[in-house]
């Protein structure tokens, strides 16, 4: 009698444990992660008061870095931060008000146009707007 109960008890315990092992990942999976979507088209790049005028920030956008610049007069510009020459990550030089690539001295203006150095094409421009407390960057609507 005791062995029968022990086996049934063991089966019940193991079965329930397995059930938990299956349900736990499923339930956790169903709960959306903190960043609720793959940020490919739209991302909150910074908080509204995070960037001082004349400074910049690199932010992840999709699988590539983007650059968010706050110009001296407070406006935002957002561009792809991938240099069109050999793919290095660009940065903003506030003194010259230009975007610059440290690898081979490529220079772009704030509209993304390649003005000097080896880059063959302009940087992709994104659309920026402030929504509440967030600075939101979106891919530009293609024509």
């Amino acid at each position, binding site marked *: 009698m005791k062995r029968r109960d022990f086996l049934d008890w063991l089966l019940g315990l193991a079965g329930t444990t*397995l059930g938990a092992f299956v349900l736990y*990942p*499923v339930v*956790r*999976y*169903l*709960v*959306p*992660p903190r*960043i609720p*979507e*793959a940020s*490919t*088209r739209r991302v909150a790049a910074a908080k509204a008061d995070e960037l001082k005028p004349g400074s910049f920030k690199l932010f992840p956008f*999709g*699988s590539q870095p983007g650059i968010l610049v706050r110009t001296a007069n407070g406006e935002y510009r957002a561009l792809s931060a991938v240099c069109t020459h050999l793919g290095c990550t660009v940065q903003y030089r506030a003194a010259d008000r230009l975007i610059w690539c440290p690898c081979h001295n490529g220079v772009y203006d704030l509209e993304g146009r390649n003005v000097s150095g080896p880059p063959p094409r302009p940087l992709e421009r994104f659309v920026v707007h402030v929504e509440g407390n967030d600075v939101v960057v979106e891919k530009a609507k293609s024509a």
Partner: protein
Amino acid sequence: MSGRLRAWLDERLGLEAFRHLAEKKEVPVHRHTFWYYWGGMTLFLFGVQVVTGILLLLYYRASADEAYESVRFIMTQVSFGWLIRSIHSWSANLMIGAAMVHMFSTFLMKAYRAPREVTWLSGMGLLALCLAFGFSGYLLPWNQLAFFATKVGTEITGATPVIGSFLLRFLRGGEHITGGTLTRFFGFHVAILPAIATVVLGLHLYLVQRHGMSLPPGLEASGTPRPAMKFVPNFLLRDMVGWLAALGVLALLSALFPWELGIKADPYSSAPAGIRPEWYFGWMFQTLRMLPSHILGLEGELVGILGIGLGGVIWLLAPFLDDPRGIGRRGRLLSALGVIAIVYVVGFTLIVYRRGKP
């Protein structure tokens, strides 16, 4: 209390009839009983696919711009996303493997004989559906390997005579593989194929219940009453041991060999080295690869497609070609054909994998 609940449900749903059927169902016990488990195994793995597939559906995006990123999101940001995705990919392969074991074993045991011809035909339909699920699902992560494997696969389909170019445009949603192809494949994979599969699977399972389990010809002929076990609980519990083993294998594979993300598809690049279709198409791919470019004035690829097609038709018509009781010369001939087919398919699948290793 459960007795009262059962009575309430039975009055409304007629559950008693099902219980009666389940109690009656028996499975013959003999030295080939092992092969009877494989239908249920395929069904279990299909169930895993449905569950994990629905979960993936909650995060996946079916556009060329976002598909790869959404799979990356699942693999990196979603809790246990890597597990759900890897299980889905591995289980697809295990399911097709189980389906093929099930098909070959029913063939060799001649379970297709009357009155089970439609069961056989619906089973072949289910296999075709599994392959279609596999082919359509493979493209969805939108990585380089998937993109170019789909390109090659649809191109070979396009070589079919008469309907080939229509088929190619139908599959691709145009002349080339584009985001439109992805949307279309997604539609096949999550809506059209599941709907068809539900109907065909329902038919298949109904027929299995209706006709009961078949006996292999040799044992049938002896006529003496065969030992059998009850489906519930004996066979079912054994089934569950097998399913647990499958679950364990899936856990092992997902943890040790997680399915890779790959590189995002770039339609304008040249095909990466080493693309090949998934293993379950491997033997067909290898057959076509090995044929010379021209045979008797026809294009080698065309001969290959026709040959495989012809083989498939013969295989499909086995119930009608074989002796009604599966004995005698015709019976032995078809069994021999079956063995040759198994050796051919398994052998060629292995060759693709041997050659594939860099």
